[in-house]
């Protein structure tokens, strides 16, 4: 093995990238299997100009979920992402339940007093946008928000790389 080629790859064999790859491939295959099994979608309709929208949503959810699982609970954003996914799935399954209650609980994020003061530093507008982008960014102070953003960016890059390679391989 040429060490040069692997300098990008983390020395940890079970790094985020490898974990994500495995998890994502597993989920992806599962989705494809389900897709194949469904009567409406035919295996020869790979060139279907209008793929089911929810299928793409499923793939995206699978990707995000496997990424968050790969990161684990170490990071606030991964926890928030997992929670979001579970919550959405839960909400979908049980629409008759008291959604409003859940929503209220969801919005009980602790609003640190520091947040407002922090955001002044970098501009309220920017901070708000960043909080929207990063999962779980609503209830963080600016310092940890920036921290989470950095890690989130790294993981997003990994995710994009892996998905690109998968896509590349599948579409050849």
């Amino acid at each position, binding site marked *: 093995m040429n060490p*040069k*080629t692997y300098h990008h790859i983390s020395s940890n064999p079970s790094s985020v990238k490898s974990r994500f790859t495995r998890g994502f491939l597993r989920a992806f295959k599962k989705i494809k299997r389900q897709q194949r099994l469904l009567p409406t979608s035919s295996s020869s309709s790979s060139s279907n100009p209008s793929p089911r929208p929810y*299928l793409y949503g499923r793939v995206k959810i699978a990707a995000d979920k496997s990424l968050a699982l790969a990161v684990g609970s170490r990071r606030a954003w991964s926890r928030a992402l997992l929670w979001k996914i579970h919550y959405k799935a839960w909400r979908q399954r049980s629409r008759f339940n008291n959604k409003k209650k859940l929503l209220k609980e969801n919005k009980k994020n602790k609003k640190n007093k520091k947040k407002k003061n922090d955001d002044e530093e970098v501009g309220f507008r920017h901070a708000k946008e960043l909080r929207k982008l990063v999962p779980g960014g609503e209830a963080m102070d600016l310092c940890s928000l920036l921290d989470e953003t950095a890690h989130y960016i790294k993981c997003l890059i990994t995710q994009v790389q892996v998905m690109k390679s998968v896509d590349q391989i599948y579409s050849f």
Partner: protein
Amino acid sequence: MNCPSSGMNTNPLPQKVSGMSMNSMSTYKSSSGADHFFGSGWDPIVSLSQGENFGVSSMVSHCEFATSPYPVVMENQVISSTANLAQYPSDPSFVELVPKIPVFGSGNFSEMVSSFGLPETARIANSGCPPNYTPNKDSGNERTSTNVAQCFEDRQISEEAAIGASTNGKTRKRAPESSSPSNPDKNANEERQKDPSGESSGTVKEQDEKKPKIEQNTGANSRGKQAAKQAKDSSNSVEAPKEYIHVRAKRGQATNSHSLAERVRREKISERMRLLQELVPGCNKITGKAVMLDEIINYVQSLQQQVEFLSMKLATVNPELNIDIERILSKDILHSRSGGAAILGFSSGMNSSQPYSHGIFQGTMPSIPTANPQFPPLHQTILDPELQSLFQMGFDSGSAVDSARLKSEL
């Protein structure tokens, strides 16, 4: 005795310069210790200690002043260990300073020395100072604080300043209780010192044996506080006696604990921003939090969009491949991480206006609704050269074989 000591004092600048140059290395090292030492007292210095990056250079320069006099002080004390007061009155400028020097030196010097980790000087100071200290206790404490501020400003007696700084640094918190705005007035300083000296005695962390030091510290603390306040008015005025040694990282900075904590926070935030700057491509030249945040937001958005597009593409992919390939896939994906990075870079290079590989989006968007066969050509044009180059770079032979096998299977 008078001459040499006074001579030493009268030529503070050259001495200081030499001392500074001599001690530049040591002072730099001790400056970090001085940071803590000063920091405990003065707010600006506290912030310095906590935000190390801040004004290190100024801190160093000031610390040089602070530390350079130490040998001078030492010598003074050693030389005129017993009758400093008697020796110095000849020199009016030193009347105030001289008694202070031993006074401060006895107390503060050992303190400062200990904080700076100079055991030798501390020993010497301790040995030399105590006898001088008691007589100077009453008058010296009061004067020293005031004089220290003034002298340091005039750069005539950096020692005092250093000592005062140290004392101020240590007992800064007490100063507000007895701080008064008028610094140039020695009497006022004396009075002020008297007050804090009584109050801040408890705050001093030194041992009880150095009680006179405590008084000095409190006095110096009050002085430091005044200096800090006056610092806002005239940051670097040489003549104004209000200026202090403490290295103010920023001019006109508030000096209460809130602003200190805020400064620490700001340091943390700027540090994180720097890390982010490294992550986001093409942000090396950007200075300013707003622009930087804009870039970060754009980058995150683009990454998320990429994920969406890729998932859309994958949704349309035809999963004809065998399951055996999965292992190869995972291996290949892991191996081709650098390939992925190269791809990203390549695509970004393709489209300079959209550095986040929107080029790929533009390429894929029209291709998604169309038939599949359009995908491979797009990939081949973009990716193949990169992959081939990567393979040539010396990838693991197994991975190369696997990718070749993959392509053949496809």
